[in-house]
């Protein structure tokens, strides 16, 4: 006498063979049915993978530029319209702060000889900025603290300026007129290629001058935007609080004078948004899975009706209801799984292509694959249940008569 478990195992194996045989023999119908599941899984996989690829690229460019920095923008109050270099000194002397880079922008005409160009972004920075970005100067020298202290009329220029004014010439030592004032070009810099996203926010200035000089040109003592660089390993939210309370003192607790934002907080918001977006899209895509499941149920019900005679015969030969049920359940399960696996394959292919087109990194999202396969297995079982049960409950006499 065989024990139950072994008997069941033999039965399951036979059922798989029979189920595959039945799926094969109804090739077109099976294919159309599993197409529903396939499209559903494909949509889920593609959406999740593509969205996570895009958000991955975004957040990696965020973190490359933003870790350990806080951006402060100052709107000022009636009494105090911006921060002064002395205020910056206070901030940069805080425990958590390594240094501060002010950004004072000028939007003026730039000219060299008879060549006049307007709309060129000119920004005032300090020497600390050039210490942080050691590699950016490709020719000449960076701006240094002597330039800051003396408000020297010197500048470093980007490739854009070289192209506009100095094609085929060595620009170093030449005089560039900014807002009608003469500046000696002391260096040329290469824009940071990694800061693609950063430039969206800060704008990419074409000419950098000492911030003290920029303030002089603007004829004001205000700095309205600066970036705080934290010491290594400093907690940015604690530092943010420290800076905010210092700024509160500087602005006499007047409200809405400034905002301090960290890249981490922007990144967090971004991540939350992309996660929400991807689950929303996946939710929509899973409607396709639901429809696919209904398709499977429909096909299985048809199959049960068509094969009533076969069911009756098997029952007459001694198949117990459970064995009949397992056979039909396995059939819908396998059908759904084949659809699911095809969906995963095509989904990965499609999202890989999409990531290439969008220029984002393709990350194999194991979670999405598990979700897709698991979902299709569940669909196969849930929607195969009722037809399989119907089959198992057929009365063998009626079923035999149906032939």
């Amino acid at each position, binding site marked *: 006498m*065989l024990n139950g478990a072994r008997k069941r195992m033999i*039965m399951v194996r036979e059922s798989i063979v029979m189920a595959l045989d039945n799926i094969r023999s109804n090739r077109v119908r099976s294919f159309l049915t599993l197409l529903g599941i396939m499209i559903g899984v494909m949509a889920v996989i593609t959406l999740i993978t593509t969205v996570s690829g895009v958000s991955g690229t975004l957040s990696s460019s965020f973190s490359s530029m933003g870790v350990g920095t806080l951006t402060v923008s100052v709107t000022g109050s009636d009494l105090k319209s911006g921060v002064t270099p002395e205020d910056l000194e206070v901030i940069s002397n805080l425990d958590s702060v390594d240094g501060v880079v002010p950004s004072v922008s000028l939007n003026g005409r730039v000219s060299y000889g008879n060549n006049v160009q307007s709309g060129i972004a000119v920004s005032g920075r300090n020497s600390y900025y050039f210490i942080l970005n050691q590699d950016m100067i490709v020719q000449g020298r960076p701006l240094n603290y002597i330039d800051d202290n003396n408000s020297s009329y010197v500048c470093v220029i980007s490739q854009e300026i070289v192209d506009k004014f100095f094609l085929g010439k060595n620009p170093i030592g030449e005089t560039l007129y900014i807002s009608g004032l003469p500046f000696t070009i002391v260096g040329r810099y290469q824009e940071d290629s990694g800061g693609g996203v950063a430039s969206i926010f800060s704008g990419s200035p074409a000419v950098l001058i000492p911030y003290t000089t920029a303030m002089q040109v603007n004829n004001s003592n205000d700095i309205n935007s600066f970036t705080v660089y934290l010491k290594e390993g400093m907690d940015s939210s604690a530092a943010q609080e420290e800076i905010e309370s210092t700024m509160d003192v500087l602005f006499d607790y007047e409200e809405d004078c400034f905002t301090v934002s960290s890249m981490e907080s922007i990144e967090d918001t971004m991540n939350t948004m992309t996660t929400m977006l991807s689950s929303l899209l996946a939710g929509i895509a899973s409607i396709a899975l639901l429809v696919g499941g209904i398709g499977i149920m429909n096909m299985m019900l048809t199959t049960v009706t068509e094969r009533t005679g076969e069911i009756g015969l098997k*029952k*007459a*030969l*001694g*198949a117990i209801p459970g064995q009949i049920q397992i056979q039909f359940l396995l059939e819908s399960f396998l059908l759904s799984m084949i659809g699911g696996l095809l969906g995963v394959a095509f989904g990965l292919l499609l999202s890989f292509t999409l990531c290439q087109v969008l220029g984002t990194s393709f990350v194999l999202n194991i979670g999405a694959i598990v979700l897709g396969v698991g979902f299709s297995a569940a669909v196969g079982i849930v929607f195969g249940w009722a037809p399989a049960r119907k089959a198992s409950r057929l009365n063998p006499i009626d079923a035999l008569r149906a032939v």
Partner: protein
Amino acid sequence: MQDIDKVYPLAGENVHALKNVSLTMEEGEYLSVLGPSGSGKSTLMNIIGCLDIPTSGEYMLRGREVEDMDEQELAELRNREIGFIFQNSQLLPRLTARRNVELPLIYSGVKPKERRERAEKMLERVGLKDRMDHLPTQLSGGQQQRVAIARALVGNPSILLADEPTGALDQKTGAQIMQLFQELNEEKRTVIMITHDLKIASNARRVVHIIDGEITEGGLHDA
């Protein structure tokens, strides 16, 4: 083998398909149930074959009470004790002759290797040694019925239950099948044949007549 003994009226939608039918059978008998269509012989076959249970009355099969069994117990009983042979052989069209014969063994949980050997032996017995891997559609009606007989025999049941086994066959093939039944009975197998054809029925050693759900002749053992 214990005697089969049953007495029952069956009320399917208040139709008495069988009325107080009593029938006793012994092991190794060759019996035919003869009756016109609508006489209740199919109902009788369903009950003998444990496909159905009587509304009332008792049915003992080899010492076991059948009337109180649930669906699962009935299925297991059918698998072990009854070999069915239907009018139009009822083979699964997508399975080869051998796979068709293996079916009852699958449900009783016989291992693949042994299953195959037993199916082949049985097909050899019915004279289809060289047709084992043919699909039913590639076989003649007589051959198909032989496959069905092999399938009925493969589980080594105590009763071979045939419903109009020659109904779909021409006279010559029908006679061959009858010959096969004769041989099987000589091998001490119990054969019950349901038919409306007196000529076919007379092949059996004992004929039971059934008309309008009542046994009119040969019900109780008179040997």
